[in-house]
């Protein structure tokens, strides 16, 4: 904790400084609020307008969570399948990379045409966004299993199942978690994009409504809400990672 305080004050100072400059600039140059609202106005709206966007926020959180869970489980499952069956991996690995190159913004309206305005197209968007980082990092983690440990397992007569559960899976966990962290932040973005397509509620809806009525302060509120949501999600995964990978040395290898 002291460490965080000691290291954290510098970046915090920079952020505060940026906000101060922003605040002063909007006042000195008398920039109208519909163009760029000052931070104080944004904070005001964020507090007083809570009841306006509260249900939007819950809806987005729910959508993000469901999408994230589906997307990552799908990604992990695919990674395991590809790892266990090398021929399938060779066939499908390029396809996974292609899937990342599909522009979601372009694909999203198509999904609406095919699946309507319900939950399904939104979940597909989030799944697509989450899938790639988690699948690739899990696959890499599984593939980079230490050859020494693998040799030991084989010499000791371990079955393929034992090799997977006792060696490859735990070995892939750190890598899997870095994928999860990326997916977690992506999934919030995916949820917001999917809400732009047409939804009854959600931060994405709140944001489009605000921008079309020139409520720029509300647009900024939604930006900060999205950032906060991503960050919370990220921190949650980091906490989980710390718990799951508590064996990891903190950078100090004892070689003596």
């Amino acid at each position, binding site marked *: 904790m002291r460490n965080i305080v000691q290291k954290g004050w510098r970046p915090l100072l920079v952020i505060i400084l940026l906000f101060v400059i922003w605040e002063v600039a909007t006042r000195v140059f008398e920039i109208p609020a519909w163009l760029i609202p000052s931070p104080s106005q944004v904070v005001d709206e964020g507090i007083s307008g809570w009841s306006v966007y509260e249900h939007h926020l819950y809806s987005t959180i729910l959508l993000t969570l469901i999408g994230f869970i589906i997307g990552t489980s799908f990604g992990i499952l695919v990674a395991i399948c590809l790892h266990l069956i090398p021929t399938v991996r060779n066939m499908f690995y390029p396809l996974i990379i292609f899937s990342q190159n599909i522009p979601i913004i372009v694909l999203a309206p198509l999904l609406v045409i095919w699946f309507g305005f319900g939950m399904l197209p939104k979940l597909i968007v989030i799944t697509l966004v989450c899938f790639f980082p988690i699948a690739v990092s899990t696959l890499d983690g599984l593939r980079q299993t230490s050859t020494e440990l693998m040799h030991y397992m084989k010499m000791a007569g371990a079955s393929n199942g034992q090799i997977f559960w006792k060696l490859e899976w735990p070995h892939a*966990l750190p890598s899997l978690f870095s994928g999860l962290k990326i997916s977690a932040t992506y999934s919030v973005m995916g949820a917001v994009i999917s809400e732009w397509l047409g939804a009854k509620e959600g931060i994405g809806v709140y944001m489009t409504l605000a921008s079309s009525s020139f409520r720029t302060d509300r647009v900024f509120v939604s930006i900060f809400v999205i950032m906060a949501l991503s960050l919370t999600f990220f921190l949650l995964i980091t906490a989980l990672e710390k718990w799951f990978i508590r064996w990891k040395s903190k950078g100090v290898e004892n070689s003596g």
Partner: protein
Amino acid sequence: MAELSLTGIAKSFEDTRVLEGISFDVHDAEFVSILGPSGSGKSTIFNLIGGLYQPDEGDIKLDGESIAGKRGSISYMPQSPSLFPWRTLLDNVMLGSEIVGQQDREASLQMIEKAGLGGYENAYPHQLSGGMKQRAAFIRSLLSPQPLICLDEPFSALDEFTRLEMQKWLLSLWSEYKRSVLFVTHNIEEALFLSDRVMVLSDRPARVKKEFKIPFERPRDESLLLTEEFLEWKKAIYNELRMIT
């Protein structure tokens, strides 16, 4: 009881003949070393006994039963400790027996205590020193139920002092548990100090060039290393090896 016998083992990889007509036995409760220049196929012999490959010719028998191409018949300690970083010392030590499906927590704890690692049961490998990791790796192989232990240059990465310490430690544990041991090394002194018999391998393709029966009384201690007789033996084996390279 463990009687390992290799008869006429040959193995090639692609077009290079690595092993040629390798035959030897390891008797019950015997400590046998294989000594050879690096790259002479010592590890290949182990991989064959471990069942990772099939020999091209010949057969490997353990207690009269062929184990060629059959995994899990021996217990193994590799060159690097190969401890699993996410397992505590206790869990690591039990891994060998866990794979075979017979865990004994009590025995493991006792063995850890006896090996001088008491108090470190819940430490992770990165918290242990090199010597401690090697001890843990050896206990892991001792705790596996298989009667024959194969040790693949286990001390080659340690410094001179730790190595001698570990050799004495190994001898004391071994004399207590009396398992059959097959030990691979490229260190003449180590082979002499530890073994009942030393097998010298020739250069590629490897054959058993000469077999030395080491007459030193057990228990042995480090004063042996400086006796005239020990140096004579060292010279004899050294000359044998020099003729190879």
